[in-house]
């Protein structure tokens, strides 16, 4: 009898606790490291005192894995790249359509907005809008590797043991472009794409002897580059911009095949519970004064009109040192990944890692 009363008491206590915390709304962000700087969160919470912001840092693959594990629960706003929405939605049903009337899309750069909409529309419903964009390409210490201009130059024997890359899909795509292929066009014919992947694997296995080590995150890449252990690498542009701050000889190099451009987006997880707070956050971070704060933290360019002019001064200098207008025209935007391609690419990457090439 005693036992039962205690249990009932406990239950009541938990329910009360649950009711108490439901009063203040919580916005649970699932985003990239540096995409939610403390300064912006404090500003947002000051403007909307009834919303608490909770942030989980992640990357594309882990965002999808986390949402898949719960069927789209546990977070209120996610920020996957534009090419990671269509197939993930078809396969795992983890997002819900956006209500575009609640987002101030008029401030967004029309070209990027249309591109993302086109990539993420399923049965007439739009699942994402753009937030920030940037590129993957090369970085080089221009005093030591002035001629590093193409993806293929990472395998140039002149830089033996002095280059690095991340063993992920970017280098597969870049290498394919450097071999004169168009991997994005081949997405519609997966047999043809497998053929390209096989050729790329062969080339990258041959190249292993030239690579010092595969980098795994921005930190080990930065350490290798700043210490001079490597002279060139495949990189995210934002990492290169950060290093440019510390050593002006280290610049981002858009490969002559075209830098690969990604757009990180806003998407609502299927079981999100704070849609209104999420829309408020989206509109908040797209305001010009907040865009500069965000870009200072991320190193990426906001997908708003004049986003490049809203970069903080140091980042603007780094971008201008890296890109000409021609390079911008030459950008290759990541194409939607159809179902099955991640598995094919993953297998190719495993093959390269396991090969004893160098």
């Amino acid at each position, binding site marked *: 009898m005693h036992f039962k009363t205690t249990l009932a008491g406990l239950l009541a206590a938990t329910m009360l606790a649950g009711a108490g915390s439901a009063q203040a709304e919580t916005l649970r962000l699932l985003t990239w490291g540096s995409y939610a700087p403390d300064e912006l969160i404090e500003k947002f919470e000051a403007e909307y005192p009834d919303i608490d912001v909770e942030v989980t840092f992640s990357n594309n693959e882990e965002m999808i894995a986390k949402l898949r594990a719960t069927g789209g629960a546990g977070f209120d706003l996610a920020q996957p790249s534009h090419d990671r929405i269509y197939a993930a939605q078809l396969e795992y049903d983890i997002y819900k359509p956006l209500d575009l009337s609640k987002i101030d899309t008029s401030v967004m750069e029309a070209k990027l907005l249309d591109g993302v909409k086109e990539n993420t529309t399923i049965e007439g419903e739009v699942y994402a809008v753009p937030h920030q964009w940037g590129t993957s390409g090369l970085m080089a210490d221009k005093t030591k590797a002035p001629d590093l201009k193409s993806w293929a130059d990472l395998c140039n024997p002149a830089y033996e043991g002095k280059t690095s890359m991340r063993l992920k899909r970017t280098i597969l795509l870049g290498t394919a472009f450097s071999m004169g292929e168009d991997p994005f066009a081949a997405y519609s014919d997966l047999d043809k794409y497998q053929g390209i992947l096989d050729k790329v694997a062969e080339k990258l296995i041959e190249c292993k002897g030239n690579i010092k080590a595969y980098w795994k995150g921005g930190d080990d890449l930065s350490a290798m580059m700043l210490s*001079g252990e490597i002279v060139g690498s495949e990189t995210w542009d934002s990492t290169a911009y950060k290093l440019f701050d510390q050593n002006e000889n280290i610049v981002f190099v858009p490969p002559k095949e075209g830098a690969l451009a990604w757009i990180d987006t806003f998407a609502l997880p299927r079981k999100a519970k704070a849609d209104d707070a999420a829309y408020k956050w989206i509109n908040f971070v797209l305001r010009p004064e907040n865009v500069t704060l965000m870009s200072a933290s991320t190193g990426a360019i906001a997908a708003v009109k004049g986003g490049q002019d809203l970069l903080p001064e140091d980042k603007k200098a780094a971008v201008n040192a890296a890109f000409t207008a021609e390079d911008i025209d030459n950008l290759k935007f990541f194409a939607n990944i159809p179902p099955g391609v991640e598995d094919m690419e993953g297998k190719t990457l495993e093959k390269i890692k396991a090969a*004893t090439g160098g």
Partner: protein
Amino acid sequence: MMQNKDIKRLSLYLLFAPFALWIILLVILPHIGMVVLSLKEKIAPRVYEYSFANYLEFLHEPIYWNTLLRTGSMSLLVTALALLIGFPIAYYIAKIAGPRSRGGLFLLCLIPLWVSDLIRAFGWILLLRETGVISNFLLWTGLIGEPVEFLYNDVAVIVGLTYTVILFMIVPLVSTLDGMDNAMIEAGYNLGGSGFTVLRRIIIPYAMPGIVAGCIVTFMLTAGSYLTPILLGGKNSSWFTEQIYNQFITRFNWEGGAAFGMLLLFFTSLVIWLGLKLSGQTLANTVAKS
């Protein structure tokens, strides 16, 4: 009378409950989930069928079982190294050191565990990298002419792993050796045995349960480790846990990843079973005892 018995039974249940909950909720249920998941095969988006396809895939692809064998053999090497280095340390702590210094020495062995795996791996990176402490020191002494890269190879992985797991070898060894009567060693010498004979015929047989317990724990920890091999390993160093991560995260292939997880469990269990058979020990008198 009756009431007393009920209370006893209730307190027994209550004491047992945390253990039972832990085993059922955190060990048995997730493993059942993994087995079910590993037996599913993806036919089309959102369509799955039960089959052994994921296990067959492992058998058909040499990359996977080569990585598993590589992980297994390197883990055995790490276990052997930990035993070779750990045994003299444990013997010194248990038998030679005075009662006052013993605690201090034990503490010194424990201190590395106070920082996380990740920090320890970064420590090794700082020491071993081309522009790191060891390379610079050797340059300064003039032993080498230009910087040498010690990082990003299998030796670095083995050194890092041995360092991480050696404590789990030392602790069970110290506790078994501690219980050994010094008179047994004296008797061995009195009867004319050499130092080596005493070690081989008296100390090692006595310490066998501790040795086996330490080996099982270090082997399991090494084969299942993720951070150290990833961070210290080079461009050819694959570790089986990395394959599991790739299946789950990079390839979105949870079914394959679950199958790999079960295979790692079977494989390590098999190695331990073989080890117990060969050494003539049982789980009950080794791990359960220490």
